[in-house]
């Protein structure tokens, strides 16, 4: 099973009111980050069977922009296990529910997302230091409960890679 870990993109400043903060949307930079990350994944021919997002607006918006770029026709699932404050055990339980799928994408927040990623790819003793910036995506191949980090790409890399191919507004993949 492959898990793509995606952190929500740029969404301005934190509100002190937690209810209001849950509804904080992506800012314009965040929209662009998510689209570029999504397009990069599409160019890599990434296929996921499920996209699961934290129920917070900035994560849902990131998920839906990336889903569109991936031409993902399904419904983005919401799961509390991806909220910023949730525990690794909750995350593991959620992943177990999706274990029949070959590839899924999870969209969440820091600190929990980085924690999940770190714990998923390191054996019990070693704690890895991985920085997951906003809009960044990591590919992890799971083998049972432990995974291997294949790559991690930040939104800035995704965007700069595509700057040169801007002229073509869409990939012409259907023609041979």
């Amino acid at each position, binding site marked *: 099973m492959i898990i793509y870990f995606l952190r929500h993109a740029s969404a301005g400043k934190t509100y002190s009111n937690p209810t209001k903060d849950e509804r904080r949307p992506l800012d314009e930079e965040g929209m662009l980050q998510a*689209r570029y990350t999504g397009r990069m994944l599409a160019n890599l021919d990434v296929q996921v069977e499920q996209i699961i997002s934290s129920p917070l607006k900035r994560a*849902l918006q990131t998920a839906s922009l990336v889903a569109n770029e991936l031409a993902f026709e399904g*419904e983005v699932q919401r799961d509390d296990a991806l909220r910023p404050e949730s525990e690794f055990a909750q995350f593991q339980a959620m992943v177990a529910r999706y274990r029949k799928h070959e590839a899924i994408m999870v969209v969440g927040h820091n600190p929990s997302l980085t924690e999940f990623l770190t714990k998923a790819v390191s054996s019990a003793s070693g704690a890895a230091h991985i920085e997951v910036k906003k809009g960044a995506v990591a590919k992890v191949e799971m083998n049972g409960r432990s995974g291997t980090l294949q790559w991690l790409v930040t939104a800035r890399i995704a965007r700069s890679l*595509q700057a040169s191919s801007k002229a073509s507004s869409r990939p012409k993949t259907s023609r041979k």
Partner: protein
Amino acid sequence: MNRPLDDPSLYINREASWLSFNKRVLEEAHDERNPLLERVKFLAISASNLDEFFEVRVAGLLQRIEEGFVDSGPDALTAQDERELISRETHLFVDAQYECWNKKLLPALEREGIRVLELKDLDPDQEAFIAEYCEKEVDPLLTPVTVDPAHPFPRVLNKALCIALLLKRKRRASGTYMGVITVPRVLPRLVRLPSKTGTDYIFLADLLTYHAARMYRGYEIVSAASFRVTRNSNLYLEEEEARNLLESVRTELHKRRKGDVVRLEIDADVSTEIARRLQQTFELEDWQVFYTNGPVNLSRLFNFYELTERPELKYKSFVPRELRLPASSSNIFAELRKRDIMLHHPYDSFDAVVDFIESAASDPDVISLKQTIYRTNRNSPIVSALIEAAAAEKEVTAVLELKARFDEALNIQWARMLEDEGVQVYHGLVGLKTHCKLSLLVRHDPDGVTRRYAHIGTGNYNPTTSRFYTDISLLTASPQITSAVHSLFNYLTAYSEAPSYSPLAIAPIELAATTLAQIQRETEHARAGRPARIVAKMNALLDKNVIQALYRASQAGVEIELIVRGMCSLRPGVPGISENITVRSIVGRFLEHTRIFYFENGGDEEMQISSADWMPRNLYERVEVLCPVLDATLQQRLKDEILAAYLADNVKARFLDRNGRYFHLPRHRGAKSFSAQDFLIALAEGAATAADIPEPVRPPARAAKVRKLKQVAARRV
């Protein structure tokens, strides 16, 4: 008059014929004899048909033009001319659809107290309702995007509703921006409003334009319009090279989702600026842009039908006839050892077929089950029957067609699931779709003999569609047939060809040759003055070889009556070529899907059912089965009840003339109206008998000729 039979003028263009089929569907939306919500549904069907036409046929044509293919069909129309034809006809058609919606259906719905409101029509309660609805249900799911030329246009999904907005920054004298909102499929396209007076709806698209102002803070919305794109949905598989069909279908499926845009539908009152930008973005020619005078996604009017609980505005529901076994037969197998069973769906319930397959799990005497699956539905009892049979440690083999159009994703899921459950899953022959509908059970019977039992169908193993598709099922224990079915399964799973599949005829091996030989045999009977007549019912008739054989048969005097629901390339009634051929199409409540063939054969009548149309793709590129109906009682039912009813239809039947137009026959004064589908419902409910079927209906030229022949015959006597 001695034109060669491959003269292009003797063939109707395939796409033109398809477009006139869809016009017949739209006619049903106009027909006031149909219940109102059914008319709305017919409009929605015509729209979803057109979607598929663009996704597959138009996309394929544009691709051929781009790649420089010059191949044309038997009508010799070039690809460019075909594009012109499609462009002209589809625009006229779409105009007609919206005219039907705006001028006929909307006013009729309003007379019934069902209204579609616009924002300005809402009362304060309704306004409060939508404000809350947008806040709670809509807003969390939407991602408003602004587009500027410096970044790529966001991707929009195939056939998904989108809103385009022209924006201007407040407090800044800059240029205009475009905003795009793609609307997730989970949101209903039609929102029911609270109403004191009746049933009120509002289109989601209208709600979104209202709500947009709140999503684009800091911008002024100059104008807004809903739009929808249709993408190329053809699969391109290079099968010979693909080691694993499952893998390559999955990859292709994924690529299909990224297919090029072939059509843009957009609100007619869109600002030219938005229209221009979208057309440019999707790289479309002018004719590929359709300005719609109403909701951009008419196919979603299905929601109307579903959401409106007004049974009096829908077809009266009917109860399909259940298969009843005589007391002397303890189960269906005992009955099948005595006689064959034929079921005519949806008039006869599909449950008998489901039971037959489920017995593989539930009946301890059944040893094995082999099954083809082309299309079936979610939570299909057929799929669960396979899984349960495997769990009961029966030997279960499924031949699953992965490439059934638009169902690929589902079929891949099933393939994986079935394999997990211990079913042996095969994907058929490389390069050939498995389209035949077969099921084969092996059972230890109480008399100590091990026998095979087969189900052969004209339709898919899909209990949902079997409620509105007409199909024939044949259940039999005839050793010749079941042994041939067994050989065919070997062909599908091991590619081992048997020397003969008689009494079946199998495509792509000998089905085309058998069909041509049967028509030829009828031609010889006619030449020798023996009785010669063909009645053939199918969905589409396009194969040039078959059409030429039919022309020759007509020239020899064979009386040919074709009941072709959809596309037909044959031109009937051409003097010297096809004057003995009539073509009629029946479009009605149920989708006509049966393939039935009748040959008079000099008096020794033959009848068959088949999974194949007379189309090149069925005859040469798919695995199909033509199966004889041998039982005399069943033959009589096919001929005197089913075919006779279709030939007597004077309500839903439309005749094809030699110019490619379809027309209703004016009914004779005093003649009662007779609809085959209504009659068959009444028959199933016990309210009619075959004796109620009137004389067959014939178009004028043919009728005159038959009268003349009868006079001549009478004079001879």
